[in-house]
Structure formats: structure tokens, C-alpha cells
């Protein structure tokens, strides 16, 4: 409790809100790293996942890859990449991309795969091209699941981006590492609180986006019971 008050006091200290390495700068860095990582991972993983879900090709390979990538310990990978790429943002960005890809990939391919086959087959039969089937049928219907993947990946990256500070001077992780080094536990906790706050904010935003997508994909809600006033005028006889 005492520590929490100290953390609050640390956060309230105006000195921590201006200048290089201040709270706003670290928050922006953290958001920037998250956006860059999720963006880059999405550019690779979502088209791949959609393609796999659409064609059914490479499914086993993708599942195996996603499983393997999930099993990679991010800290270990970061150390390895750091040794290879040296100090700087390169290694953490790459390690975080590896962290984000599996969720995005799984969301994209399982979302597209779960679209009812009769719907896509019907779309094809009435003359949609494969591209039109993907963009006008599969993506809108799979959007809630794809966004679920984005949501999971974003939260993972926000939490884990603290590790970027391990070998780069960036992100809210700096407060954790600084605090650890100087035994300034108030600063550490303040950093952790800020990360939690950002994570919660994104959780709320992305959950809302997901609900919106779900409403667009199933606009009428659950299958309604037969309408009370049947729309059956008698045809001319």
C-alpha cells in the first residue's frame, strides 16, 4: 500500500513529466514500438493467414510455424538477436514481431476458414472473382476473429515491449530497468502501472472494435424465429 502511494507520488512529480526520458516520452515510445511491431507483424501475418484460410493450402505448415513461434521465449530470442544486431531497437522490434505473428496468423486463418463454405461457394457461383470473395465476403465475415487476433497480439506486445529497454533506450521498460538498478521501487511500480493502463485502454478500444465487426458480420443478431407477419402476398393466379 505504502509502495503504491510512493508510486503515485512518483507519477505526480512534475519533474518526471518533462524532458528526455520523461513519462510522456516513454509512453509515446512505447506506443510507437507497439504500433510498429503490430503493424509490421500484421502486414506479414494477416495476408498470409487470409491466403491460407481462403485456399486451404499450407495449413499444416502455418499451424506448425505458429506453434513453434509461440514456444520461442522472447527474452532468449531478444538476447540472441541483441548479440547479432547489437544495441538498439532492431533486436527488440524483431523479437516482438516474432511474438505478435502467431496470434495474428491464427486469427486470420481461422477466421477466414470458419466462414461458411456454402456462402463462399455461392458467391463464386454467382460470379465473384477470388479477390472479390476475399474482400467482400470472407474479410467482413471473418473480421471479428481477425480482430481477436489483433487484440491478443497488441496486448502481448504492449506488455512485452518493456523488454525493449533491456537493450535499447526506449519505452516504459526504462522505468522498470532503471528502478531495478537503483532500487527505486516506486519508479518500477509507476512504470508497471503505466503499462497496465495502456494495456487496459487498448483492451477496451479493441474489444469495442471487435463487437462492432461482429455486429456487421451478423447484423440481425442470432437467427430470428419465423417472423410474426409472413411476407407472402399471393402471386397472381
Amino acid at each position: 500500500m505504502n509502495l503504491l502511494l510512493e508510486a503515485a507520488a512518483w507519477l505526480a512529480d512534475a519533474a518526471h513529466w518533462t524532458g528526455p526520458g520523461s513519462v510522456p516520452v516513454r509512453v509515446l515510445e512505447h506506443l510507437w514500438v507497439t504500433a510498429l511491431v503490430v503493424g509490421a507483424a500484421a502486414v506479414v501475418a494477416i495476408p498470409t493467414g487470409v491466403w491460407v484460410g481462403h485456399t486451404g493450402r499450407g495449413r499444416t505448415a502455418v499451424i506448425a510455424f505458429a506453434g513453434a513461434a509461440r514456444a520461442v521465449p522472447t527474452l532468449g530470442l531478444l538476447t540472441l538477436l541483441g548479440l547479432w544486431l547489437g544495441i538498439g531497437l532492431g533486436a527488440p522490434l524483431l523479437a516482438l514481431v516474432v511474438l505478435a505473428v502467431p496470434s495474428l496468423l491464427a486469427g486470420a486463418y481461422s477466421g477466414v476458414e470458419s466462414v461458411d463454405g456454402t456462402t463462399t461457394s455461392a458467391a463464386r457461383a454467382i460470379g465473384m472473382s477470388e479477390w472479390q470473395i476475399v474482400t467482400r465476403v470472407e474479410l467482413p465475415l471473418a473480421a471479428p476473429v481477425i480482430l481477436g487476433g489483433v487484440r491478443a497480439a497488441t496486448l502481448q506486445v504492449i506488455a512485452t515491449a518493456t523488454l525493449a529497454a533491456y537493450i535499447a533506450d526506449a519505452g516504459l521498460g526504462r522505468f522498470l530497468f532503471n528502478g531495478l538498478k537503483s532500487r527505486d521501487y516506486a519508479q518500477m511500480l509507476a512504470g508497471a502501472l503505466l503499462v497496465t493502463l495502456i494495456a487496459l485502454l487498448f483492451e477496451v478500444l479493441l474489444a469495442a472494435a471487435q463487437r462492432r465487426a461482429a455486429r456487421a458480420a451478423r447484423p440481425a443478431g442470432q437467427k430470428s424465429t419465423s417472423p410474426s407477419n409472413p411476407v407472402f402476398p399471393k402471386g397472381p393466379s
Partner: protein
Amino acid sequence: MIEFCGVGKTYAGGTVAVEDFSYTVQANSLVVLVGSSGSGKTTLLRMVNRMVEPTAGSVLIDGRDVAGLDRVRLRRSIGYVLQAGGLLPHRTIADNVATVPVLNGTRRREARSAVVGLLERVGLDPSCAERYPSQLSGGQQQRVGVARALAADPDILLMDEPFGAVDPIVRRELQDELRRLQRELGKTILLVTHDIDEAFRVGDEVVVLKERGVTAQVGTPADILAHPADAFVRSFVGADRAERRLRTTDVDGRRVLVDDDGRPAGVLVAAEERRTAP
């Protein structure tokens, strides 16, 4: 005109769905392919719009081999009605019906303005245009499927068990409407069903299929009932069923038709009494 010229289909894995089928659907006629489950009806139907590529023979539309046509354009030029309706669940009825014209480049507003007429044509209240498929009953969805197939005004309609999911009363209603549409619009229609009564009700000509798309008999419904080609057709059309075997008895001067079980089926009317054909 649709010509099947010695078409066959062996699916990957070795299932022979269709062995060797030849038949010509005349322009402006309504032909029904009827056969039991797995006889290759859907396979044959989908060869016409290249949803299935034959492994032997070819399909010609107005003398042109479909194999040489662009698939997407071919499909947009043919109306296709699927068993379950196959509507897009995330789009309104109006947008569903307007799908093909919009794909063809008609402006969305323009395409949607034609929707009311199309819905009326298939006997749906235009007020359902802004609803979503899941808000309609199975029979209403199937009507929307028919309206969608008609939207681009194709010469050819393919219908795969279009009335499968509805109760017998609505089914009859839809069958009658199909006949009416066929008369009014003069389309070439190829319809698939496993229901022989439906085939007889709507078909100008009926093709009875055995396993592997083998033709058991081709003819008008009357032909087939009068002269079933063999024991298979006899049993398939139920030629020996009591309700197919009618005779007349005299009831107070009226000639009443009764079936083999003695149940009355109707009265016999003289030629001059007949209502003019609907």
C-alpha cells in the same frame, strides 16, 4: 440452348460422379434433372457454369464451349439458385439481390432501385428489402435467391433443389410461381431435384437419372408416366403407386376419378368445361 456432349466427371480420389452424359436443353424450355441422391445431378448442373470442370466431353452454350469462356463472366451471365439460398449473411436483402448487377458495374443506387420489382416478381413484399437474410424464413430466403438469380436478366437459370428447404404448401406455391416466371420471362431453365412430383409439376421435359448420371429416360412428364422405359423408371416415378393409378366411377352422373385405393382424386371434366389454361 445448353448442350451436354458426352460429359463425364471423375473426382480426384476416383469417385465417378458422371460417366457419359449427353443431352440438349432447348432454349426457353424448363428441363428437370431428377434422380436419387448421388446420381450426379449437382455435378452436371455445375458443369454449365464451370463450378465443376468435366473430365470428359464438353458443355456448349449456344454452340460455344464453356471451357473457352472466362469463368467469372460466364457465371455472371447465368442465374444460379442454390438449395440453401446461399445469400450473403452480412448484406441486406436489397444488396444481396443487387449483387450481380453491381459486380457488372451498375451503380449501386441504380441496381437497388430495380430490387423492388424483382422482389415483387418472386412474390415477396418489398418491405423486406432492408432486412437481413437471417430475418427471413427459409422459403422467403429461397425467393430472394431466385430474385438474385434474375437480377442481371440472364438467359439461363440453373436451379439446384431450389425449393428443398420449405414445407410442401410453400413448395407448391413456389413451383407454381416458377412456371409463371418461365412463361413470362421465357428463360432457359435447368432445374435439379430428387422429387419426382416436383419434376412432373414444373418440367417441360424431364431427364430421369440413374447412378453415375446414366440417363434412364428422357421425355415429357406425360410420356414418362404413360410409358416408363424400364423397371427402374417405373419404380422411381411410382407408376405402380396407388395414387398414380386412377380410374373413373360414376357418382350421380358425374365422372369421379379414384385411385387404386378407392380414394377420390378429382372429377373428370369435358373439354368445353375446362378453364382456359392459366
